[in-house]
């Protein structure tokens, strides 16, 4: 009972935080009406920061309530099954320990950067390019300038790929050569394009020779968006801002996605605060393990996006689209019928029962490693068409192939042409 009461109390906290955000919005509207000029703008900028910090706490509170409720249910069975309660105790402790409060800094960073003179900005970018280059809330052109300085003195296969690909119109929004390496690259200025698409890649992604394929996929989505709406500009951003799993063993674990949540949340917030006016359509595409990163971020930290798109996913950390804290009508997914990811069964028993035993590689399974398959109609999102390929591995790798309806559909979603999206 006490666990259920704790769950209710945390849910109540989440509700009160939501009310507080609405109240701060009301104050903001009031200040906008009654306080014009530079001082009024500065006050509203501070208020925006306070609002963002309040909003950032709501989803972690909701998630805490959800974890406590799940544990309360397990504890209620303790008399019958003490082992179940003990298992839940361990799992709940791990899940709560992984929670983090998302940073609400981009709005503050933006205000600080705007307050500097041109000379001061130049000095910061020249003397601390590593820090300026990765700071969400700083405009894309300034981040790019700082990161190119870092790139010039860096080495390695992935660095060489970047040097070759950073032509005009391509922006380096993040670079970290430590460990497997990280890179954030935009095709088109995200601050001035009408629409912004963020692509989160999956397993094997790193700052190495594999970067070429991720860049090609990102560029292909920019082209697809441009073809879907030639009258608008769409920036497509590769967000390799996390340490992706290196193999299937690692990809079966959610900890890589856990580590990415806060950073992806903040990056999306940063895109919004540095954009020149409102972003037309902001979308996030998660591929393979990247879909789990997107799903867990939406679930636990919140993600600023008009549409979430999952490609070739083995689950996104929830049982249904409604659990992602976004309108399920804005959740899209596609999976080739014979995508190898459909074999990512949570147990060997399920794999035999649902795939191997009935037929050789049957229909995609509803339940996968990381939750319900988002491309299953039962998930509650919108399923769109993707082409099958000759074998399951090719099927998993082919979403960006010319002529694959999946690519065309992602382009349509990125520009808000939802009605043109084709269904399976």
């Amino acid at each position, binding site marked *: 009972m*006490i*666990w259920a*009461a*704790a769950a209710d*109390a*945390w849910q*109540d*906290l989440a509700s*009160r*935080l939501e009310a*507080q955000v609405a*109240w701060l919005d009301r*104050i903001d509207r*009031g*200040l906008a*009406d*009654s*306080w*014009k*000029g530079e*001082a*009024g703008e500065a*006050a509203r900028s*501070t*208020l925006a920061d*306070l609002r963002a*910090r*309040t909003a950032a*706490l709501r989803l*972690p*509170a909701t998630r*805490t309530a959800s974890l*406590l409720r799940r*544990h309360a249910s397990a504890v209620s069975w303790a008399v019958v099954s003490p082992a179940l309660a003990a298992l*839940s*105790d*361990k799992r*709940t*402790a*791990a899940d*709560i*320990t992984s*929670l983090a*409060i998302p940073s609400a800094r981009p709005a503050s960073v933006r205000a600080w950067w705007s307050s500097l003179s041109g000379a001061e900005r130049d000095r910061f970018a020249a003397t601390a390019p590593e820090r300026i280059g990765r700071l969400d809330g700083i405009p894309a052109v300034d981040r790019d300038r700082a990161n190119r300085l870092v790139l010039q003195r860096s080495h390695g296969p992935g660095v060489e790929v970047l040097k070759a690909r950073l032509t005009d119109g391509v922006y380096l929004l993040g670079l970290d050569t430590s460990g497997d390496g990280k890179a954030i690259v935009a095709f088109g200025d995200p601050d001035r394009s009408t629409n912004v698409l963020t692509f989160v890649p999956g397993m094997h992604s790193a700052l190495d020779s594999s970067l070429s394929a991720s860049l090609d996929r990102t560029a292909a989505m920019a082209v697809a968006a441009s073809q879907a709406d030639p009258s608008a500009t769409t920036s497509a951003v590769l967000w390799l801002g996390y340490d992706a799993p290196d193999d299937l063993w690692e990809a079966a674990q959610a900890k890589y996605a856990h580590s990415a949540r806060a950073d992806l949340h903040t990056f999306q917030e940063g895109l919004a605060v540095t954009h020149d006016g409102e972003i037309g359509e902001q979308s996030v595409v998660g591929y393979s393990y990247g879909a789990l990163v997107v799903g867990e971020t939406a679930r636990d930290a919140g993600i600023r996006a008009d549409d979430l798109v999952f490609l070739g996913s083995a689950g996104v950390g929830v049982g249904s689209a409604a659990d992602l804290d976004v309108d399920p009508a804005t959740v899209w997914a596609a999976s080739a019928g014979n995508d190898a990811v459909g074999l990512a069964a949570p147990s060997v028993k399920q794999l035999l029962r649902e795939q191997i035993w009935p037929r050789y590689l049957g229909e995609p399974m509803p339940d996968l490693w990381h939750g319900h398959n988002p491309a299953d109609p039962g998930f509650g999102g919108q399923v769109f068409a993707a082409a099958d390929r000759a074998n399951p591995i090719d099927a998993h790798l082919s979403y960006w192939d010319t002529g694959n309806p999946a690519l065309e559909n992602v382009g349509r979603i990125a520009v808000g042409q939802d009605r043109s999206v084709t269904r399976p």
Partner: protein
Amino acid sequence: MLDVDFAALHRWGGLLQSSRVPAVPTFPLPGAAGAALAGWTHSVQDALAALDADLDRFATAVSACAANYEEVA
């Protein structure tokens, strides 16, 4: 000519000063989950306390600005 409605600013400043961010529920609970929850509660408490202090400072500043504008006018 200042484009400021300082009466309204006084009102918003007062409203902000009277507000408080929500408190975090505290539950001493058993097991590893209880210990994890205690640590997490502490983190959220710290974040809310910092937010409350900053909100208070902001409210004071808004009220002070309203008073200054009134004096100048």
